């Protein structure tokens, strides 16, 4: 699909049932055209990762995903040698009386290389892939620094093989839950977009798109309920992912509209902290359900 305008991006996302605001569509469009990595920040469960998935489908290309965690290093993010195979190969080459230099060359060739996501993205043949670097705030500063290098020129140097350049620079989407502040140097290299919690109307549209079979009345009540719930003092506000879970749960229980009993019984789908559950169940639930019924 040709993505040659902001509207085209927005429409294309809609075909993937991804409801986007114009600001997000603009950010994506620019990151494709400039081209520059796109840094998406937002609370957990507002659909940051979904952007990358939808984009890969739209562009009909591969999605390469790197999940970050503390201590993520080159051998898990870029490449690793296949040591057992190398050791066996040495034995064989020894028996065949291959001279040492050639043996070294042999065992440090691509054949013995295990590609990890970043190297896969750089060596990818054909269309430029979408590279999703997920939850970068979980990785440590050391990895962030390494990433800087990669993002600036999309090349990876393996001492034994040489420098590998990307044929088509991948489309990079970086997500962060903002559990820590990222380094300015990294931010400077990216386009930035903050994904906020959706409005009632947007969440309603997301639900009708993503939860097949839900009736409009229930979807609207759920959207209003969640919207009001996000105004409460909670340790963890429910994200869109939770909304969808809850809608699916209510559907599975054959509910056509919200009732206090059922809402209370299924509250665990949206609130995952004991304190939050207690606070809402104790004296807020009825008011919220009533507000949801009125909001239609």
């Amino acid at each position: 699909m040709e993505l040659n305008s902001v509207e085209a991006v927005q429409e294309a996302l809609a075909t993937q049932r991804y409801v986007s605001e114009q600001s997000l569509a603009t950010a994506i469009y620019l990151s494709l055209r400039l081209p520059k990595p796109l840094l998406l920040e937002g609370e957990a469960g507002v659909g940051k990762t979904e952007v990358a998935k939808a984009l890969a489908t739209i562009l009909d290309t591969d999605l390469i995903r790197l999940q970050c965690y503390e201590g993520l290093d080159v051998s898990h993010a870029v490449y690793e040698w296949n040591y057992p195979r190398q050791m066996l190969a040495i034995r064989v080459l020894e028996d065949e009386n291959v001279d040492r230099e050639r043996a070294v060359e042999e065992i440090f060739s691509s054949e013995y290389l295990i590609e990890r996501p970043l190297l896969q993205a750089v060596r990818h043949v054909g269309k430029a892939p979408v590279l999703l670097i997920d939850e970068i705030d979980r990785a440590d500063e050391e990895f962030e620094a390494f990433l800087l290098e990669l993002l600036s020129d999309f090349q990876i140097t393996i001492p034994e093989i040489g420098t590998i350049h990307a044929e088509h620079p991948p489309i990079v989407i970086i997500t962060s839950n903002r559990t820590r502040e990222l380094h300015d140097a990294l931010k400077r290299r990216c386009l930035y977009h903050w994904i906020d919690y959706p409005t009632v109307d947007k969440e309603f549209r997301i639900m009708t798109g993503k939860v097949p079979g839900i009736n409009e009345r229930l979807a609207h009540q759920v959207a209003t309920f969640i919207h009001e719930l996000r105004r409460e003092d909670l340790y963890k506000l429910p994200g869109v992912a939770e909304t969808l879970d809850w809608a699916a749960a209510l559907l599975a229980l054959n509910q056509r509209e919200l009732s206090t009993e059922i809402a209370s019984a299924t509250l665990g789908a949206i609130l995952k902290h004991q304190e939050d559950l207690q606070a809402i169940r104790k004296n807020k639930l009825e008011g919220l359900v009533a507000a949801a019924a009125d909001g239609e």
Partner: protein
Amino acid sequence: MSTTTDTFVQRSISFGRALRRAGVHTTMGQVMDFVRSAELIEISQRPEFREAARACLITHKDDLPTFDRVFDSYWRSKPDFTDQFFESGQPGDETYEVAEGEEGEEGEGTPDEAGDQEGGKRQRLEMVEPDDSAENAEDSEGDSDDVLSYSAAEVLRERDFADLSEEELAMARHLMERLHWKIGQRRSRRRVASPKGRFIDARRTMRRSLQTAGVPLRLSRRKTKTKPRQLVVICDVSGSMDRYSRILLQFIYAIENNMARVEAFVFGTRLTRISRLLRRRSIDDAMQRVAREVQDWSGGTRIGQSLQTFNMTWARRVLRNGAVVIIISDGWDRGDPELLRAEMSRLQRGSYRLIWLNPLLGSPRYEPLTRGMQAAMPYIDDFMTVHNLASLEALAKHLSEIDDLRPVRRQNPLLPRPSVPPAA
């Protein structure tokens, strides 16, 4: 204490600094040990004196040559140091006078003025401590100040912050900047090469095995890397803490500029994050900015609510990877103790170690009986005082000893028993 002993203390302090400048890592605590040990040995015997100094101040074999060099140049320049400092106690003792001169300027005098005033005496100091001269141009103000005021500082260590005059506060603040902060380490998930590490470094072992025809005769190893823990300080600046809050903020500033990772918050009725404000070069600048930004300075206290704000808004961002949390407050809470209890419980679960510093604990008659303190007590891992410099030193020591062993916590915190037994 007589001025003679004080002068010896000063000499020792500056000797310690000369060592540090030469690249030897010695702490103020070590210097104080050295001063104490000087009372125990025959100080006029040079070899014994040298041995004592070496035993107290040096912890690395590699530092021995440096130590010998610095020791010789430092103590030889006044071969009669024992006479000078222990047998004569005349009031005309030079360094003492300089101390008074500096004090009059409240530590803010320009270096040039000070130099002119004390002309000859300063020169003598520089002669004794040749290493100083290079740095003098840059921070002679701080330098002369700390050498000379240390005798007073010794007394200052034990005095309650609340009883200090303005000048003494300024002095305490300088001393505070010199405290060495080192926080306990946590194990990170990253691994680094180390000959005695627990894990085998497959990549290197493989490479090295090529030299021995593919037989991995020597194993390369890696160990877990450690990183300093995140420190989070939450400081009460309400009215009841007024006598302490300013100096304690300076204490936070001092840690902040000594260690990389400190997140700082202050609260009265509401919580304000001041981490960014403290990243200023000069402490006065930082203090001014904090005072401007923090609205409810010296107002009432709502600890429970402030901690709730922290738990909801900040905990996820700053309590990562086993943070050590320090709350500084006297526990006078006007809010709901039940809320404070709930938030303390949550905060304790989120932190690796929860330390509560209460300046009132310094008084021998104090008992934590306020409602707020009572509610918070079951969730505190370490309850310590923070009313004078000595207590700060104790805290610094405590922080550096926090290791990988989590404090034992009760599954169900001990709570005061309800007066009416719950219905079955």
